[in-house]
């Protein structure tokens, strides 16, 4: 019973976030006034932790805490009145207390309870004298001591609220950082490691990590985790049952919050499993999908720790965001694999077409159309390669052009200049065919068929009344004199299809060399 109350008191005290904090003027003032009012050399604000009393403010005493069993304040602590002991040497409960028998020689004690709004008593404001006081405090002094104790309690709670909102702001900032790092990550390990590092730093814990849980919630595969210096990683597979009765919570999807593995009923039977990996307190925050726990966010502390409600809310949000991020990355990876598979089949099909064409056209005496066919197939295949690199979404115009030039040859005599322009998959394919025809034409009849000739390919996005328009300018120089062809072959028809397969081509057979202007709306080009 008393243990229960003491545990609740320690918990209420932990929530105040005051233990082991530096001195503060408001509390120093209160003990000063108490000591003056009661004419006592010693005055303390004593807070009762589970194994010690810790002084938030003190006058006339040289230690900041004592073991709990030396505490006079804890006597009759649940009695809401002022505790007064006129002669500590004459009271059975205190006559063998080292503070009484030793050099400090406490003789007289009076203490008023520090009662929180919840009713919890967390300590006392007390005055102590080194001489016994048979008469004790006057009624007025007692009233004042009580009033000062109420001031101290109020201030403890207000202080907590102020600290709480600072803490909330800190956690909110961390959450924003985690959101950013999740958005910018494209692999699961980098994502969980970055988020764990932020969680670890803001909560000042010893370890933070994220793991996916198997179908029947028996094992967890922990991704590479974040650890404080001196703490070992627990990345890898673990069985929940090896660490105590912690599985049921996770199966139900409830957060597992343990403040002290040595006393928590779920780990008390075998706390060694936890302490062996440096865990004295922990939070396991499950992530649910379709009514099943699929992952757990893990936070470990190397010492016992009371987890604050706002910390748990924070961890809940982090766990949800991480799960969404991990799902997104896995979907991306699956999509990428699928695209790779499709591209591989498509290229296999192109190889088959090449083989069939080659067999079918084996006996055709004029090899030129057969070669043209094969080369056009290559241009298409090169454009597919470029698209594949960007997961079949879009391709940069320059990369497509370079792939075609590389396939045909002469890359040293084709000069390109222009900004980055994203081509959708359709435009990438039709542009690669146009580019290929222009290249082969230049090789056969134009600037590339004799030494010294070269090609300039420039492009720009121009704003017109109809919207943004891409203009690609093809300029040949240094070739033999140009004569406009008398008939339009398939190659020329392909070129006239233009950048997006819808025309917009101006071909000029200038004496210096062929000039082609290809135009298409940027909006049209972006279509996939």
């Amino acid at each position, binding site marked *: 019973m008393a243990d229960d109350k003491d545990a609740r008191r320690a918990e209420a005290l932990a929530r105040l976030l005051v233990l082991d904090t530096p001195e503060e003027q408001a509390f120093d003032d209160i003990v000063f006034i108490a000591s003056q009012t009661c004419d006592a050399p010693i005055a303390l604000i004593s807070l009762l932790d589970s194994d010690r009393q810790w002084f938030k403010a003190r006058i006339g005493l040289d230690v900041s805490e004592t073991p709990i069993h030396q505490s006079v304040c804890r006597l009759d602590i649940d009695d809401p009145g002022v505790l007064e002991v006129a002669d500590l040497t004459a009271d059975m409960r205190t006559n063998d207390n080292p503070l009484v028998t030793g050099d400090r020689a406490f003789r007289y004690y009076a203490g008023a309870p520090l009662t929180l709004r919840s009713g919890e008593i967390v300590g006392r404001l007390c005055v102590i004298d080194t001489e016994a006081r048979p008469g004790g405090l006057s009624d007025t002094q007692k009233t004042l001591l009580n009033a000062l104790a109420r001031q101290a309690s109020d201030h403890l709670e207000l202080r907590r609220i102020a600290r709480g909102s600072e803490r909330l702001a800190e956690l909110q900032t961390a959450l924003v950082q985690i959101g950013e790092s999740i958005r910018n990550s494209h692999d699961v390990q980098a994502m969980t490691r970055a988020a764990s590092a932020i969680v670890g730093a803001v909560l000042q814990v010893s370890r933070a990590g994220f793991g996916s849980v198997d179908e029947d919630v028996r094992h967890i595969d922990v991704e590479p985790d974040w650890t404080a210096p001196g703490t070992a990683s627990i990345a890898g597979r673990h069985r929940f049952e090896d660490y105590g009765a912690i599985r049921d919570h996770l199966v139900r999807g409830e957060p597992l919050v343990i403040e002290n593995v040595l006393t928590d009923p779920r780990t008390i039977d075998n706390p060694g499993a936890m302490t062996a990996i440096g865990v004295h307190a922990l939070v396991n925050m499950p992530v649910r999908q379709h009514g099943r726990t699929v992952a757990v966010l893990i936070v470990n502390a190397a010492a016992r720790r009371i987890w604050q409600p706002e910390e748990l809310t924070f961890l809940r949000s982090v766990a949800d965001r991480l799960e969404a991020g991990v799902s997104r990355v896995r979907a991306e990876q699956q999509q990428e694999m699928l695209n790779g598979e499709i591209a591989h089949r498509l*290229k296999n099909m192109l190889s088959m077409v090449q*083989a069939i064409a*080659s067999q079918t056209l084996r006996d055709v005496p004029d090899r030129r159309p057969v070669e043209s066919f094969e080369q056009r*197939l290559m241009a298409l295949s090169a454009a597919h390669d470029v698209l594949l690199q960007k997961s079949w979404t879009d391709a940069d115009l320059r990369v497509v052009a370079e792939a075609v030039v590389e*396939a045909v040859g002469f890359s040293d005599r084709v000069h390109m200049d222009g900004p980055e322009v994203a081509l959708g998959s359709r435009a990438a394919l039709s542009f690669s065919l146009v580019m290929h025809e222009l290249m082969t034409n230049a090789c056969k009849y134009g600037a590339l068929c004799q030494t010294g000739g070269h090609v300039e390919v420039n492009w720009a996005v121009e704003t017109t009344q109809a919207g943004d328009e891409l203009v690609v300018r093809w300029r040949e120089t240094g070739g033999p004199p140009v004569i406009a062809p008398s008939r339009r072959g398939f190659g020329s028809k392909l070129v006239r299809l233009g950048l997006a397969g819808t025309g917009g081509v101006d071909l000029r057979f200038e004496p210096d060399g062929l000039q082609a202007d290809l135009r298409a709306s940027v909006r049209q080009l972006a279509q996939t």
Partner: protein
Amino acid sequence: MIGTAIIERPVVLVVEDEPLLRLFATDMIEDAGFAVIDVGSASAAIAVLERRPDIRIVFTDIDMPGGIDGIKLAACVRDRWPPIKIIITSEKPWPTGVTLPTDAIFFSKPYRQDRVISTIQQMAA
């Protein structure tokens, strides 16, 4: 003078599981003046290599059933028959992080016939 001069044509081993592509590669290489032995798997290729010391070039696909793919075959050829030159082809890009064996060249499929043939000619020279 009796008899004819036998012109020793360099022998190329074509390894490709897809029959149509195997036929295509065989014709292409034969048309360029080489002798071709064609097989449909890496293990069949090794069996041929063990009894035919005259093979100069191995032309292999990567994706093949039967446990040994073209990459493993190439490594095995490099290890057991160091003088043999290797051409590897695939619909997929060359895997990142895997080094091409020495005296080996990779072609993405579909490949340009003229480039493959000129490579074989250089290797055989």
